[in-house]
């Protein structure tokens, strides 16, 4: 079970993501933004950070990195891809996922232990969760407001492609102004998932608010082993 983790100039959480993969029993493979080579991995993680300094728009320049020339067609062909935070922004800029992420409505950088509801437990990255399960992982970003037009939002909801929703506060507000409290979504096939919060920071006792992040990595590892066994 080999999971690639892409490093862009400005990626921050690539090592944490690789560590999370190892902690959960997988092999982490370093992928480089400048190489259009996925090294035969079984799945890919686009990690958090500030690729290219977030210049132009978050994820906008990373989208055109050579590694994306290999990743985009592979993802369209069914390769499991998880985009975390900046990785989610890269996935929307790449049009692998619909919508976009804009500056938090309150204009402040957020860093909180965030409660989420898992809405879809049948994607490649969430099969070890139960639908409706509540998890707590770290949310840390300045541009995490999920936006899309009404039709796209309706389509996402109608097709069960909202994967995670923020648990709102007492006033009914989510942490960044995301439309319909959306924290994470998937493509129609369920192999590409993007979310703003960080599962890789919640995999080890003593670090982070919980061990809830482990489910992301064990889901993909279990699923890939099963599909290998059935091949």
């Amino acid at each position, binding site marked *: 079970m080999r999971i690639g983790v892409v490093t862009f100039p400005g990626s921050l959480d690539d090592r944490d993501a690789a560590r999370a993969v190892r902690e959960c029993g997988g092999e982490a493979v370093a992928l480089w933004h400048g190489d259009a080579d996925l090294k035969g991995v079984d799945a890919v993680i686009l990690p958090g950070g500030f690729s290219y300094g977030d210049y*132009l*728009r978050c994820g*906008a*320049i990373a989208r*055109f990195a050579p590694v994306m020339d290999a990743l985009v067609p592979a993802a369209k062909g069914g390769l499991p891809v998880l985009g975390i935070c900046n990785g989610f922004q890269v996935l*929307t*800029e790449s049009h692998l996922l*619909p*919508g*976009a992420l*804009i*500056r*938090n*409505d*309150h*204009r402040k950088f957020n860093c909180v232990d965030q409660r989420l509801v898992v809405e879809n437990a049948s994607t490649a990255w969430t099969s070890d969760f139960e639908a409706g399960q509540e998890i707590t992982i770290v949310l840390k970003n300045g541009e995490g*407001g999920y*936006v*899309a*037009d009404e039709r796209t939002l309706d389509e996402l909801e109608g097709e069960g492609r909202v994967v995670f929703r923020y648990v709102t506060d007492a006033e009914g507000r989510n942490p960044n*102004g995301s439309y319909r409290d959306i924290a994470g979504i998937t493509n129609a096939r369920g192999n590409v998932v993007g979310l703003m919060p960080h599962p890789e920071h919640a995999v080890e006792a003593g670090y982070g608010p919980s061990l809830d992040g482990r489910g992301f990595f064990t889901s993909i590892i279990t699923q890939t082993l099963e599909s290998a066994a059935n091949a």
Partner: protein
Amino acid sequence: MGSIVVDVMLKPEILDPQGQAVGGALPRLGFDGFTDVRQGKRFVLTVDGDVTDEHLTAAREAAETLLSNPVIEDVVSVRVLDGSEDGSEDGAEGGADGKGESEDGEQ
């Protein structure tokens, strides 16, 4: 050496927190006549020699692919920058919808 100006704005229906922050600061300086501020981006693309139709076509393509994200942004105009540098327009091609180019005053 010619240049092409590309102007990109967030779509009107997309929240603009940066514009709101600027809008919130204006009254503190005594500018209280402005009811809304939206912040956009201007790119100046420079070429060797004069700007040709090919340059403009390429600039329009770049504007739609890299310089803007059609999900949240509109390319407001793509036009040749007049040599006189202060942005006064020669109206050449592009979606120069005559909009917003009243910047020849003061400063």
